[in-house]
């Protein structure tokens, strides 16, 4: 059983694990809401949107994590606002515009980083467990705490905004503000994850466990518990995979989370292959 424990003898692996545990607690609940609100693809665009911000941060502050993170945060917020504006301008048919935004953001980010000295493009895009310094760990734990508390605070209006936005408006609530607040929390988590998972993969730990969770629970609270459990498993197994096979942490964790999704699809208790094959109906 040595190979289970051995990777975490290294300080950087322990830091990476601690950081990913923090993100696994905060990110997947946001992911469940992204999935339910049909915003998974918008969140994908958001994740690419932070890259130019990270790149500009790197160009200004060198490889300073906080500057890069701050740049990514503001760029992500900008893309979230832009996405909202596009959705309104196109009456909900914003997908083509979002695809455009995503391509431009990715190209712009890569272009800026390739012109910046001292920053490894691969590490920014795909993450590196070696990148999880004490500073990165504080960033991950800090944003995870803010995101978790933030979601708890906006929970009730967010549920209502997702389920029955008209009722919220009739009560005098402003759905758009809750939506923006929620998207800001998503941006925070994506930025928090980028040093370990990379800007291309950061969302993986948020979305994949959430998609898989709907195969394990019917109710919102149950889906959120399942998503956190799956994300914790993906973090631990993924980091071991990264260590033993020498993969970047981002792809390793995302592949593990993807594997858990496929397993949930096959063996989960709801809407899965198993449930489809063997489902005697109730008597009443």
């Amino acid at each position, binding site marked *: 059983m040595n190979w289970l424990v051995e990777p975490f003898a290294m300080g950087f692996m322990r830091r990476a694990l601690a950081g990913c545990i923090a993100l696994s607690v905060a990110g997947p609940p946001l992911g469940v809401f992204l999935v*339910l609100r049909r915003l998974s693809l918008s969140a994908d665009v958001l994740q690419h949107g932070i890259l130019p911000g990270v790149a500009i941060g790197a160009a200004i502050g060198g490889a300073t994590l906080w500057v890069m993170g701050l740049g990514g945060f503001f760029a992500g917020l900008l893309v979230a606002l832009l996405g909202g504006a596009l959705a309104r301008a196109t009456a909900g048919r914003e997908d083509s515009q979002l695809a455009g935004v995503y391509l431009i953001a990715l190209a712009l980010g890569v272009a800026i980083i390739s012109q910046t000295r001292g920053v490894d493009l691969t590490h920014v895009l795909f993450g590196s467990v070696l990148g999880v310094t004490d500073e990165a760990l504080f960033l991950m734990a800090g944003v995870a705490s803010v995101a978790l508390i933030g979601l708890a*605070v*906006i929970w*009730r*209006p967010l*549920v*209502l905004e*997702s*389920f*029955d936005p*008209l*009722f919220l*408006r*009739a*009560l*005098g*609530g402003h759905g758009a503000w809750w939506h923006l607040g929620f998207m800001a929390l998503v941006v925070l988590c994506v930025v928090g994850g980028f040093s370990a998972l990379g800007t291309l993969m950061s969302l993986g730990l948020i979305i994949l466990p959430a998609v898989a969770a709907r195969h394990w*629970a*019917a*109710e*919102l609270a149950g*889906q959120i518990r399942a998503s956190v459990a799956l994300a914790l498993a993906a973090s631990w197994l993924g980091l071991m995979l990264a260590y033993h096979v020498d993969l970047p942490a981002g792809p390793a964790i995302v592949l593990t989370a993807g594997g858990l999704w496929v397993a949930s699809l096959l063996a989960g208790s709801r809407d899965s292959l198993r449930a489809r094959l063997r489902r005697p109906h109730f008597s009443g």
Partner: protein
Amino acid sequence: MGAVSGRLAARAAFVAAPIVLRNLTLTHERRPAVHHLSGTFAPASLTAIVGPNGAGKTTLLRAIAGLHAVAEGVLDLGGLPARAIGLLPQASALDRGFPVSCLDVVALGALGRVGAFARMPQAELDRAADAMARVGMQGFERRPVGSLSAGQFQRVLFARLIVQDAPVMLLDEPTSAVDARTEAALLGLMHGWHEEGRTVIAVLHDLELVAAHFPQTLLLAREAVGWGRTGEVLTPENRLRARLAAEAWVEAPEICDAPHSHAA
């Protein structure tokens, strides 16, 4: 008990105000859905709104609930705040796939009292369970709303309206999609609200039901064809006029240049 009596007092204060429409025009884009409508929903009245499809019934309810902007004229709620108006929408507007339980949905009716952030008090949860029993949905508390039939879901929304406890109740086709027994139960609840002194306004299509249960009727065909005591409004002549008006709605209307010509 202090909170409850305080709420009742607040409701009594709300109820004093009639809902007054003065030359009210509501539009979709620039096309009028409600055209130069004037009249008053008296406090504590029980009114049915009837009329052909496209007559502006839903738009009028949404405007009173603050969900549709007034294009022209005045919609005077006498200072009622948004949360003092309860609306039962047509159920199709909701995301019924969202994984919330029936009790959670019903308890959200208390949002105006509890606020967005505070913990839901046990008293409100009890009240929600009680409201579910009143619409015949006891035993469904933990069921996800996605598993309900259209009629059951309508009853859950009705229970939420009970919990909302608003002095003005707006109901958009409340009895569509429910069975005869539920329809009777819901009508009983509406009569109960009327007797408690709330203003109840319901959009309905079943004229027999309106004649049997609603003292006041607004026959709407963008403009008011008739508005007053149900027996005097639902005459064969008025119903013919409403139908003819609906058939006369033209494809490319001209700009209405006489904004005050229909004012009462």
